[in-house]
């Protein structure tokens, strides 16, 4: 039995093509994935991401708890509303999940974790809070689970016109959100509005009571916001060079080998789970981009043959913005941007060029 978000019937009413996405019945597209992709790069699109799980932390020990729990340093969160992207590691330095932490007050934080990892994440957080004897109450807020009446839906509105469309539909939110820089959140009545996203475009991720999600979805749709499926979400995040948990990294992969060094705060004395393993192992591989020079499509798990040894594609697809196939890959140390390498696609060796791991953002190619 697949789990359903509170917007499931809205997707079906729009004739979405539904797929089993990690146990959730989710829309992959509403007709054309490529058109939805372009809508987000050029105008405005919206995604139901209510399968992702908000987790609220309340208590005197929020900061010391998060300081030990995640690889990035919550000491960077000094202004209320600021968000921080981080990996949560196991003792071996592998990635349990990647998540966003929102700082509200010193005794109240919100974390949003991935859909497929939510249960193990919660179990891990609860175990660590108990082990470290932290004064922190951990409550998940995902609809359909036990949330004590606090179930939330999440709608991501993304694209150059996203802010204007959101203000058109939620005029009461404009004053509190128009000054939001990237990676901040504001609370307006029952809405939690964050200037975060997974597309490389401006926009908001809006958390709200699950019972009100369908009404907001329909108002946004009436305002001309294009419903977009998880297919477009994947090509958008791939072009933007954003990691996908389970493909680009998992519990067996170090964040240092997955392009996440910028999120790991190693330098000071702070200890966190996985730090000693990362220090001991160091960086073993580098996370870079590929553009296919021959015709074909790069996909996850294809082997990459370089002068320095063999690497592997972790995510690949066709880029609607570049009109070429692109990929993210873990490659041997020593491979340089601009190198020409070969990718084994069904036994044929095709030519690809090594690039920075970011291809398009803010409506245009950056490669």
């Amino acid at each position, binding site marked *: 039995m697949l789990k359903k978000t509170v917007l499931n019937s809205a997707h079906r009413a729009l004739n979405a*093509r539904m797929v089993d996405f990690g146990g959730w019945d989710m829309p*992959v*597209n509403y007709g*054309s*994935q*490529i058109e939805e992709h372009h809508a987000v790069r050029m105008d405005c699109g919206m995604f139901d991401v209510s399968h992702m799980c908000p987790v609220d932390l309340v208590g005197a020990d929020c900061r010391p708890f998060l300081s030990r729990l995640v690889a990035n340093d919550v000491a960077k969160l000094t202004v209320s509303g600021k968000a921080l992207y981080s990996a949560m590691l196991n003792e071996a330095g592998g990635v349990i999940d990647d998540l966003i932490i929102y700082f509200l007050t010193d005794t109240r934080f919100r974390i949003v974790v991935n859909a497929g990892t939510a249960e193990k994440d919660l179990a891990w957080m609860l175990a660590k809070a108990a082990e470290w004897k932290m004064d922190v109450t951990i409550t998940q807020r995902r609809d359909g689970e036990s949330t004590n009446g606090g179930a939330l839906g999440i709608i991501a509105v993304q694209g150059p016109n996203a802010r204007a469309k959101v203000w058109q539909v939620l005029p009461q939110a404009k004053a509190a959100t128009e000054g939001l820089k990237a990676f901040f959140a504001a609370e307006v009545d029952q809405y939690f509005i964050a200037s975060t996203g997974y597309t490389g475009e401006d926009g908001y991720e809006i958390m709200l009571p699950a019972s009100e999600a369908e009404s907001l979805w329909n108002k946004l749709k009436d305002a001309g916001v294009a419903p977009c499926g998880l*297919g477009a979400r994947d*090509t958008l995040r791939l072009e933007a060079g954003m990691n996908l948990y389970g493909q680009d990294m998992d519990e067996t992969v170090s964040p240092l080998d997955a392009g996440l060094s910028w999120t790991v705060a190693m330098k000071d004395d702070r200890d966190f789970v996985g730090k000693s393993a990362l220090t001991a192992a160091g960086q073993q591989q580098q996370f870079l981009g590929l553009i296919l020079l021959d*015709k*074909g*499509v790069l*996909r996850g798990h294809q082997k990459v043959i370089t002068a320095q040894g063999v690497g592997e594609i972790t995510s690949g*697809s*066709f880029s*609607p913005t570049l009109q070429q*196939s692109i990929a993210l890959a873990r490659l041997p140390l020593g491979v340089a941007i601009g190198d020409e390498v070969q990718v084994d696609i*069904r036994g044929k060796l095709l030519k690809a060029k090594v690039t920075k791991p970011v291809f398009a953002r803010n409506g245009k190619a950056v490669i």
Partner: protein
Amino acid sequence: MSNVPSNLKYAASHEWVLKNADGSVTIGITDHAQEALGDLVFVELPEVGAHYAADKEIAVVESVKAAADVYAPIAGTVTEVNQAAADAPESVNSDAYAAWLFKMTPDNLADVDALLDAAAYQAVADAA
């Protein structure tokens, strides 16, 4: 609902087959297949002159989402490929029955008659 023309024969692996007057057959993927794959971005065609056994992988169609093998619905030799479909994969999305992929000369023309008819293929597509 996908379109299943009654003048064609079908393989359960979602290829359509049209018998031509000269004894050759024209082959493509079904409307149901293109719809399930989503926007196509790459088509890899077989080589003219190559011989394939029935059910052998003969071509590849890739959408933004995934790669899918196309299987030879019958045993035979490739006589012609539709380069226009490879140059514009989206044409398969627009009309899967106009944008054929390749033509074959069957080893046994009777093999074509043994393929699924429209009603039988519709049942396969409905169950997928």
